[in-house]
Structure formats: structure tokens, C-alpha cells
């Protein structure tokens, strides 16, 4: 009956999305009338009892070196094993890159119905019904699943998080992992100390209007005062001005931060497809006719090279006085 949630960690630290996943699970469990249980996999530095702040009262902590590098099959086997032990029939996963690799494999292992790309908590629990995004944010639709077991993967930043005071009770768990297809991670290359784009609440993004990679310093400064991640349009990553992982849009990643600041981006339909569900959109462009203004909440017509430093400065002043 219970709802199980995968609490992802990286090098022993919880991923930011995991807190939202915990909250999603707690809300889903409340709607069903049952409890939510967290699962952590691998050795942790963080204290798992903090998951209690997001409404999950119990966490099963499974230690072991087999989770040191990410393996979608091993994670799926472990989640399945804990779900069986805890009698969980609903599994919540955050739609991170790793989450997306686990969910379909777990659905097959558990004979579960899978709904991905959810943007809200379930609107009904029998059958389990969830609103999800389709056509790259150009549409929404309700999906239902009537299978006895079901998995929901939601888009990060869909429901946000609010912190309470409770602590979760943490119990050590053990799992049995059967034969899984062999894969070995040979090298990991991950940015450190930066806010990751998929989980960022605020994003500063640059387009071809930035003229060249050497001009990104001012966007990074703006991102810095905003505690934002950086992103870019497709041509910018195609030209190698920025890494591919920053490319947002229909063929890049889809994000929905609270704030998206677009600088020197025209607002092509394929770009909007990945960012239009951002809660607040600010557009800075020197062409008053740029299509992006139609999709924006706030617009500034002006030269990025003048407006961006001024905005950074104004934000710094604001922060000092507040």
C-alpha cells in the first residue's frame, strides 16, 4: 500500500530534486491515505533524517559499494526489493537523467504502469491519474494507470518544496540484486560547485546575441548573484561556445525553473518548447520585434552588453539592502 520514493544521491550527498521527490511522495501518500517511505542507495555523508522535513517519516538506507557508480538495473532491482519488503505499490522518481534511465527498467521489473513527465501530484488515486506535459510543453494531458503497481516520474521543479520541522526515522535496509546486464562506468566528468541546470530554480540563458564564448563572463556573474544555473540556445552549443549539457529547448533539455532570464535569444518555437513552462520569464533583446517578448513576463529592449551588467549591479544592491 505505501508509497516509495527514490532519494537520489551523488557522492554521498542528496540531489536537490530528491527533496522535491520526497514531498511529491508525501502528498501522493496523503491522497491515497498511506505513508511515504524514502529509499537511499549507497554510502551517505548526508544525514537521511533530513528527508523528514519534506513529509517522509521513514527512510530505508541501503548501503553498499554496488551503488557507487550509477547502474540503472541495479537501482531498479534495489527499489523493487525494498518495495516488496515494505509492501509499496506506488513508486515516485524524480525525472533526472538517472531517474529517467531507472523508471522504464523498474516498470518492467515490477510489472508496473509508468507515467513520466508528470507536472502535478495525482488528481485522482483510483485509477491513479496524473497530469503530464506532452508535445514539449505545448500541451498537457491526464494519464491514468489501472495496474496494481505504478510508477510516476515527475519533471523536476514541478511542485516545488517547502520545509517542515520533522525528522525521518532511518533504518538500514538490505536488498537482493539478481543477475543484471553488465555495464561498467569507466569515467565520470561532472561539473562541481555549480548549480545543475535540471534542478535549478533560476536560470540565466544566452543566445547567439551574445556574439561569442568570451562574453559569457557577464552571464555567469548575473547567474552568480541570482544563484542561477546557466543555459544556452541550440546554435550556441552547436558552435561550441557552451557545453552541450546547457542546451535547452525541444531537442535539448526541457526545464521549468521559477525564473528564466533569456539574453540575446530570439525565441524560436523550438527554443520556447523547452522553457515556456518556466514560471517567470525575463527577456533581454535589442530587437523590440523579437518573438520571445510574446512569451515573456518582463521584457527589456536593449543591448545585452549594457543591460546585463546594470541588472547584475542592481541585483547586488538589492541583495545588500534586503
Amino acid at each position: 500500500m505505501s508509497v516509495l520514493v527514490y532519494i537520489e544521491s551523488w557522492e554521498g550527498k542528496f540531489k536537490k530534486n530528491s527533496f522535491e521527490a520526497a514531498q511529491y511522495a508525501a502528498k501522493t501518500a496523503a491522497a491515497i491515505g498511506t505513508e511515504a517511505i524514502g529509499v537511499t542507495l549507497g554510502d551517505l555523508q548526508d544525514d537521511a533524517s533530513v528527508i523528514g522535513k519534506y513529509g517522509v517519516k521513514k527512510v530505508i538506507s541501503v548501503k553498499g559499494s554496488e551503488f557507487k557508480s550509477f547502474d540503472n538495473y541495479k537501482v531498479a532491482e534495489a527499489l523493487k526489493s525494498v518495495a516488496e519488503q515494505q509492501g509499496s505499490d506506488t513508486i515516485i522518481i524524480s525525472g533526472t537523467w538517472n531517474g529517467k534511465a531507472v523508471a522504464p527498467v523498474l516498470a518492467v521489473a515490477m510489472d508496473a504502469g509508468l507515467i513520466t513527465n508528470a507536472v502535478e501530484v495525482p488528481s485522482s488515486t483510483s485509477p491513479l491519474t496524473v497530469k503530464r506535459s506532452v508535445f514539449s510543453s505545448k500541451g498537457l494531458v491526464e494519464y491514468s494507470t489501472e495496474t496494481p503497481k505504478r510508477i510516476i516520474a515527475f519533471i523536476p521543479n514541478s511542485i516545488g518544496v517547502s520545509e517542515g520541522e520533522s525528522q525521518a526515522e532511518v533504518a538500514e535496509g538490505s536488498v537482493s540484486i539478481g543477475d543484471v546486464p553488465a555495464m561498467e562506468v569507466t569515467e565520470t566528468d561532472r561539473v562541481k560547485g555549480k548549480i545543475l541546470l535540471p534542478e535549478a530554480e533560476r536560470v540565466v540563458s544566452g543566445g547567439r546575441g551574445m556574439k561569442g564564448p568570451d562574453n559569457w563572463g557577464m552571464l555567469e556573474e548575473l547567474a552568480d548573484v541570482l544563484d542561477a544555473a546557466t543555459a544556452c540556445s541550440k546554435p550556441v552549443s552547436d558552435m561550441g561556445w557552451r557545453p552541450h549539457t546547457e542546451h535547452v529547448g525541444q531537442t535539448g533539455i526541457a526545464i521549468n525553473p521559477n525564473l528564466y532570464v533569456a539574453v540575446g535569444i530570439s525565441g524560436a518555437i523550438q527554443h520556447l518548447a523547452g522553457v515556456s513552462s518556466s514560471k517567470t520569464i525575463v527577456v533581454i533583446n535589442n530587437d523590440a520585434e523579437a518573438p520571445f517578448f510574446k512569451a515573456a513576463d518582463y521584457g527589456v529592449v536593449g543591448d545585452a552588453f549594457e543591460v546585463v551588467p546594470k541588472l547584475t549591479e542592481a541585483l547586488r544592491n538589492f541583495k545588500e539592502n534586503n
Partner: protein
Amino acid sequence: MKVLVCISHVPDTTSKINFTSDNKEFDKNGVQFVINPYDEFGLTRAIWIKEKQGGTVTVLNVGKAETEPTLRKALAIGADDAIRIDAEPTDAFYVAQQIAAVVKENNYDLVIAGRESIDYNGGQVPGMLAALLKWPFVNGCMGLELDGNKASLIREIDGGKEKLSASLPLVIGGQKGLVEEKDLRIPNMRGIMSARTKPLNVKDATNGDHRTSVGNYEKPAPKSAVKMIDADNIEELVNLLHSEAKVI
């Protein structure tokens, strides 16, 4: 090397999306359909594999007759043959079961799918297919090199990438990086001519289960009108972000 490339048939990226007046269905009227962009990268990669080490490239779609022009385009780009499994692809698990049945019959060494279809953005079919076959699965795959039956792969992870090694057979959910945009093969005249005579085999669906059902569609709420702020009064933007949008 026998490579299977799974192709989904999706609205062109510039399409305006509309739903029927009862909101029960996607309105296909006036919509141009194309090969799913992620599958295009996989198709070109598959053709490179064939050119380098020999073998065949088969493209497959689970869909009704309307998807055949998309499969013909894949043949014109350079696939050797095509399979259409005659069924409505309304549920990812059902689609994965259909593809798994074909793979089991034909001994492919490698299945290249895309990381997601840009219509329903499910990102489910390749992972389910891999799990049904019990083959390794690499999602968000942006690099693939083969040496005999050893594969070196690169996958995207949050904020970076990882290199992996695995043995064939395997399934990938591919994307840009498998090849670059400039390398994408497009049909030429000879390709288009020869595509007409290449085999496109239509198969009946095998039994499978549907695990999800689709309810009402809606469009996202329209944005309210943009507020324009004078570039010389940027403090005003900061105030609005704080007091109105409440994002800082």
C-alpha cells in the same frame, strides 16, 4: 553487424499543437510529420557503422499506414529495409513489447532508439525494450564506438557525462553526439529512387498489454501580457521580480 533503428513518427518541431474540440485527441490536421529528431542522429550513426564494418540497418516503426512516408524517408537516407508493425502506438509498454518480439526473431546486435519522442516525451520505450530483452541500456547516449562486440559509450548525466563499457547486444536511447548535426544524412535523389524498391514489411501486432490510458488534453494557460521595462530603469525590474513575481 545487424543494427535496428527504432523510429517514431512525430510532428515537425515547428508545428503548432492543437487538440480536437472535445479535447480527447491530438488534432493531426495540417501537421507535418517527420522522423523523431533523436532518431535521426541514431539512423546516421547506424549507417556509419554499416559503412565501416559491414552489416545491415533495419528501421522499425510501430504505427498505422500513415507512418510509411517516414519509414520511406529513413530508407532514402540509407537504411536497407523497414518494418512497420501495424498497431496504434498508444502505450509505451505495448510498443516496447512489439519491438521486443521483432528483436527476438531477428538477432540484432544493437538497437538504437532515441532518448524520447518529441510528441509524448515519454522516454520509456527504449528502457522497457532493454529490460524485456535483459540487455544493457544506456540512456541519453551521446557517443558510441564499437570494437568487435565491445561498445564504449558516453551518456549524459545531470551536469555532465559518463563513459561506459558494455558488450553487445545492447539498447541505447540516443541523442545528438552520436553524430553531430552537420553529419546528419539527408535523402539524395539516388536514395529516394532506391527507397521505392527497398523492402517495407508490414507485420501484424503480437499480443501485448496496455498499462496506461489517455484522458483529456489541454493547452497550457496563456501568459499574461508582457510588461516592458525601460533599459534605463532596471531597478524597476528588480522590484517587480521581488514584489510581483516573488522569484528573488
